[in-house]
């Protein structure tokens, strides 16, 4: 395996009934990069995440992780290989306190394997991860039950659950949506730090301004297909991308 293509998606397709949610999408995720995936609502971004992480089985095509085929594996097995994801609609464990939420990934076979079973006090590890991601310990935020946490913390909890897995790839599904500028400002350094640690990140996002500060490369999807790929600024200059996002009329009015 070279430096290129830690994760490779090849001609993957999926339809739900008559709707082709994802059509022959190919992309590769390079080790250590932050890749952005953007596109209008319904362009198949979340389905793509579900296909990669095994939550949905593809109709055609394959996904390779370190040159090994992972399509068809069960979702928990893919997670144990080190490909973790957040959910667009947050899925916390409502009845558990925030730090107990992390006990679940800390008990995964992957964590047990990578730490050789010597993780030590799991509660303490969970607490450290949460503190790093911005759960103020002095204000007892990590002790609050997930059902009582506001949106900003729930989004961070999603990311914390990925970090707890000690992953190689984190796929963030709209982790900024619904957050205030201040909240995003606290999330960005966390993601930058993960990148520095060598974790590859794929971000699906609608908040383009914030996204473009982080990513080196962006892929635009529209109607289940890859529309464009490249450096953020160049991609956004393209006429077809602007049309996909804004529609033709708006563009012509402004010109």
């Amino acid at each position, binding site marked *: 395996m070279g430096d290129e293509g830690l994760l490779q998606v090849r001609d993957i397709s999926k339809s739900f009934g008559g709707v082709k949610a994802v059509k022959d999408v190919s992309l590769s995720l390079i080790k250590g990069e932050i890749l952005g995936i953007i596109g209008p609502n319904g362009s198949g971004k979340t389905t793509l995440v579900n296909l990669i*992480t095994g*939550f949905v089985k593809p109709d055609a095509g394959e996904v390779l992780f370190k040159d090994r085929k992972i399509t068809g594996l*069960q*979702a*928990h*097995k893919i*997670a*144990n290989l080190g490909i*973790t*994801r957040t*959910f667009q609609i947050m*899925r*916390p*464990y*409502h*009845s*558990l306190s925030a730090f*107990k*939420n992390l*006990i*679940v*990934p800390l*008990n*995964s*076979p*992957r*964590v047990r394997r990578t730490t050789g079973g010597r993780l030590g006090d*799991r509660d303490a590890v969970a607490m450290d991860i949460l503190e790093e991601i911005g759960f103020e310990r002095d204000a007892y935020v990590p002790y609050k039950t997930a059902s009582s946490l506001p949106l900003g913390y729930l989004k961070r909890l999603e990311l914390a*659950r990925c970090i*707890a*897995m000690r992953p190689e790839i984190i796929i963030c599904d709209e982790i900024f949506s619904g957050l205030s500028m201040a909240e995003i400002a606290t999330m960005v350094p966390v993601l930058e730090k993960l990148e520095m640690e060598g974790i590859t990140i794929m971000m699906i996002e609608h908040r383009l301004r914030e996204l473009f500060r982080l990513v080196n490369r962006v892929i635009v999807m529209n109607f289940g297909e890859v529309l464009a790929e490249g450096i953020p600024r160049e991609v956004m200059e393209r006429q077809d991308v602007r049309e996909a996002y804004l529609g033709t009329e708006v563009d012509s009015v402004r010109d």
Partner: protein
Amino acid sequence: MVIEETRRKRLDRGIKVRTESLYALSTWREMAYMILPRLTLILGLFILPLVLSMYWQRVLCSAGIYALLALGFDFLAEYVGLVCLGGALFIGSGGYISGILNAYLDWPPMLTIPIATLGGSVISTLILLPCLRLRGIYFAIVSFMLPLLAVYIIIALNVFGGTEGISALDTFPNIWVEQYIILGAVIFSLFAIRRLVNKDIGLIFRGIMDNDQAVKASGINITSYKTKAVFIASIIGCFGGAYLSHLYSWLGISLFAMDFSIVPIAASVMGGMGTLVGPVVGAFILTPMSEALRGFGQLRVVLYCLILIGFIVYKPEGLMNYLQRKYHQFEYWERV
């Protein structure tokens, strides 16, 4: 006229907050606050056989069996998210195995009960395994049907005594052993399960209940954990079944009776779902009550249902949720 509006506010007692972490216990008063409710339950159950008459002692034994089933039901429903109406399956498989070992091989209850507990729970878990993919009401329906299947297999093949059953199984040496075995089992399983739900494995169970997709994304095989949970609940239930066949010195298709699936739900509703101790208390109230109402003949069921409906309407949270709230919190009226 000025109408003063007030609302009821509830606050945790200071002592509750202090005693939540074990390390904070410093005074006798705080220790008593922690220990007394538990001690009341344990001592209460252990003293009961000493004050009851022969007839009610037998009732106590069957109440214990229902308490075990109710505990298993509450554990699966409120801590794993599986509504399992397979109580009859657990009782039936445990009861049949211990009865058959005793009748055909002449093994003593000391041996048949542990074997039946383990063997029965392996069998019931295997039977429930294909249904574990189902969620919510669908799992409930299928687990409710399976005991009926077992009944028809036994009748159709005319094995294990067929419709007649097998009688004259070995009984326990005396009534004291009989009672304290089941009471000990109830207390032990109650505290074991309470511990389990706060351990890591218990947290994973609760994660599966809250959000199974997220548990998958955390690299955990939910089917294997659901299997473990069902196995734990069926150990408790199958012990009850194995005990039952020796208690009545008889086995037959009524070990698969619907009562064993339904009474635990009633006990849980009455006692308070999700408290674990509630369903146990509920079973120890409902079973004797059902006996006490025997004098009313056919009206018994009507009265029984009225009491249950009364509970659902007036105290839907159940007995123990209510009592625990009263114990841990104080209320006051606040002017708005």
